[in-house]
């Protein structure tokens, strides 16, 4: 809890995780995290969240120290002045999120979606990607958007209640059996519309235990280095952690990019590119009135703490 | 004398009961009389009345109305209950007209009969009032009028005046006797008040738990007696009844 913040000898770190085969899952399975922190007499407690929405709530109430979420939820956290910092980009989303339509429907291109029902989980990266797509094709107020959780999207898809959906894996797999992508987040990434999963740390924790934050980033970075050298090891580990088959885990990871600290530093990813993206995202969401004010560049700069990645990357 | 009701070997045992509550009863009710029934609490007065009304079915024996076996309740036998059982969602006139309405009389006919009864029970000005605004005595008068609206062959009262205070009860006794006289009705009045049984009954039926003669019907010389005229003979007569009950 928050009270432990001042304490020098911390006995437990609580991490909010998503149930997906990501770097945290792999690092956890491979013992990068637990073994490492056990040496410091620190236990790690994992708390599963269904979405970044709930993770944000837990950050506010002080029930978690770290939380993984989509960057859109990060923007929400920033604009609602939650005391939290962005310290890590877990992955840049690729074809594991996308806009699908049913095979054989009359939708040949994105323009054909005008007047149709499209489902997506609101406040998610998919939501943002969908909105950017719609904006580009001038469809913003010409489709009816439905806010649904992923399981409800599958149900509605099977019943034919919706024409299209922007969602993520594993929901996509059954839908792609009788459907296909109109666009996916990899395409958007190539058009410089980036969405990513990020890790936030609670402000109080970061101020009191910067060394532990650095340690955690270092361990996650290990998974990133590993996947580029030897993807099989990571995919196998992530699949085991999430009770998936190798194939399932592989397709759920898809073409998402796990940048190492080194790559992030070299590409000035955290210091420039991603901060620009957050700025654009914030502006768009504010315009959509989903958040009440757009974060300024200065706010973003305070929110994104680059030193942990930089320290690692410059080695 | 013409018999309206014939009770023949009437026996009734409640389901689950071991002893019969009514045990081979035999008696008649004559057209135009008032028969009062008196007996200790639990001796079966209400059971008898419910059987004649058709709510209960004899275990053996039968009850005849004008020579026909009674199988279910009908408008031909009216009943006035202790707690009047007036319908609170209907006003006074609608309560009185209820039976006629159910029997699909036309509106005009219903109005005529109801208005006449309202006159007779002296409640013409309460016509549109709802039941909850009436006093206890008024309620019982409406209940009597409701039972009479159908012009039934027999009207039965089950301790209908027991909840009223002495003064109101005296008023109601007068109303009952007036109606009986002017409309040539037949009444069966169940009560556990001996004075009431004597005041209202042409004949008095005494129910006893004694199986050899569960019911004794006696003539009543003091029918409609005025309180002022009570003498020691009356007291003796009353005490004789009292002793037979206990």
């Amino acid at each position, binding site marked *: 809890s928050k009270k432990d913040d001042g304490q020098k000898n911390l006995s437990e770190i609580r991490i909010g995780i998503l149930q997906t085969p990501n770097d945290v899952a792999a690092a956890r399975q491979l013992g990068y995290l637990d073994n490492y922190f056990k040496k410091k007499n620190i236990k790690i407690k994992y708390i599963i969240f269904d979405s970044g*929405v709930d993770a*944000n*709530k837990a950050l*506010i109430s002080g029930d978690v120290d770290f939380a993984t979420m989509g960057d859109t939820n990060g923007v*929400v*956290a920033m604009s*609602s*002045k*939650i005391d939290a910092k962005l310290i890590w980009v877990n992955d840049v989303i690729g074809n594991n999120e996308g806009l699908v339509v049913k095979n054989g429907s009359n939708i040949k291109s994105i323009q054909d979606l005008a007047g149709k029902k499209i*489902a997506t989980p*609101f*406040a998610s990266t998919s939501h943002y990607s969908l909105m950017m797509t719609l904006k580009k094709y001038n469809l913003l*107020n010409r489709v*009816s*958007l*439905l*806010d*649904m*959780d992923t*399981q*409800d999207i599958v*149900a*509605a898809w*099977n*019943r034919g*209640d*919706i024409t299209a959906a922007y969602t993520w894996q594993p929901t996509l797999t059954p839908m792609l059996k009788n459907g296909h992508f109109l666009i996916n987040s990899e395409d958007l990434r190539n058009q410089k519309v980036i969405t990513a999963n990020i890790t936030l740390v609670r402000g109080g924790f970061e101020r009191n235990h910067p060394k532990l934050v650095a340690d955690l980033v270092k361990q996650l970075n290990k998974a990133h280095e590993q996947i580029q050298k030897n993807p099989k090891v990571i995919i196998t580990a992530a699949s085991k952690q999430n009770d998936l088959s190798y194939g399932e885990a592989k397709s759920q990871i898809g073409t998402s990019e796990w940048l190492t600290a080194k790559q992030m530093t070299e590409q000035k990813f955290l210091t420039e590119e991603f901060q620009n993206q957050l700025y654009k995202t914030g502006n768009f969401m504010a315009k959509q*009135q*989903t*958040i*009440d004010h757009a974060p300024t560049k200065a706010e973003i700069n305070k929110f994104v703490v680059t030193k942990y990645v930089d320290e690692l990357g410059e080695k | 004398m013409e018999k309206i009701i014939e009770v023949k070997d009437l026996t009734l045992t409640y389901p689950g009961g071991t002893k019969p509550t009514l045990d081979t009863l035999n008696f008649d009710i004559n057209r135009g009389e008032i028969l009062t029934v008196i007996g200790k609490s639990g001796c079966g007065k209400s059971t008898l009345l*419910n059987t004649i*009304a*058709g*709510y209960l079915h004899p275990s053996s024996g039968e009850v005849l109305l004008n020579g026909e076996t009674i199988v*279910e*309740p*009908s*408008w031909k*036998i*009216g*009943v006035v*209950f202790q*707690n009047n*059982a007036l*319908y*609170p*969602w209907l006003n006074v006139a609608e309560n009185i007209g*209820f*039976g006629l309405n*159910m*029997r699909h009389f036309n509106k005009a006919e219903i109005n005529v009969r109801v208005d006449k009864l309202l006159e007779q029970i002296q409640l013409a000005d309460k016509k549109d009032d*709802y*039941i*909850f605004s009436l006093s206890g005595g008024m309620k019982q008068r409406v209940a009597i009028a*409701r*039972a009479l*609206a*159908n012009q039934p062959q027999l009207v039965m009262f089950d301790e209908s005046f027991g909840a009223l205070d002495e003064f109101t009860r005296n008023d109601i006794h007068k109303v009952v006797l007036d109606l009986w006289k002017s409309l040539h009705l037949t009444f069966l009045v169940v009560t556990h008040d001996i004075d009431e049984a004597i005041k209202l009954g042409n004949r008095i039926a005494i129910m006893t738990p004694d199986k050899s003669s569960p019911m004794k019907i006696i003539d009543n010389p003091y029918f409609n007696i005025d309180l002022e005229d009570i003498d020691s003979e009356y007291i003796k007569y009353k005490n004789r009844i009292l002793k037979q009950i206990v």
Partner: protein
Amino acid sequence: MKAKNRKYLGITVITWLVLLIVWQLVTALKITPEILLPSPEKVITTFINLSKYGYNGIPLWYHFMITMLRLLSAVGLAIITAIPLGLLSGRIKIVYAIFDSIIQFIRPIPPLAYYTLLILWVGIGETSKVVLLYLAAFAPIYLACISGVRKVNVDYIKSARSLGASSTQVFFHIIFPSALPDIFTGIRTSVGMAYTTVVAAEMVAATYGIGWMIVNASKYLKSDVMFVGIFILGITGVILDQLLKLIERKIVFWSGKS
């Protein structure tokens, strides 16, 4: 008597004023962060803004009307189905034997437990929302009807039969009005149950409704909007109940009077 009542009304008013002042103080002194507890002014300005500009492009009154419409159609459906079934169940033992155990079984199940199944069966449209509310609203009316029928004064039925009413007439002219006070209590409970379920119903695939607005606002951690929504639901709930009590007093005017 009246002076006394005014005194107690005064105490109630003071209680709310004290709450308001404490709220104002706590937020003014920044004892809690704004996101946990927005200030009264903030909530009021948010309410004004929502009234002016709507939420998510849809006017606030429209969100409100939609929610009420869903609620009332569900309760309406429950009324016209549960009353006949309940009255029959109370009167005819076979009907009771068939339906009661099923309803008793379904009644306690939390609506959220079967919402996903409902969506699989009837889709994400208005139907599933109304059906969910309907299922929440059904049992209270049904149970109230049964208890109403059981409580009917047997003397009413006896007297009606002796006045010449047939079994059918007894049902419509005696049983039904006798059970009406209980039915109204049931309807009030039923509205309460459906009302409690309204946010759950609007959680899936809705794009308007006060419940949806609250859920959506909670995704973006807009606690001011959540407060506005909660106040709207709270006040509406009280008004709805008072309204039903008023109608009840009009229709079953005799109830409670000896």
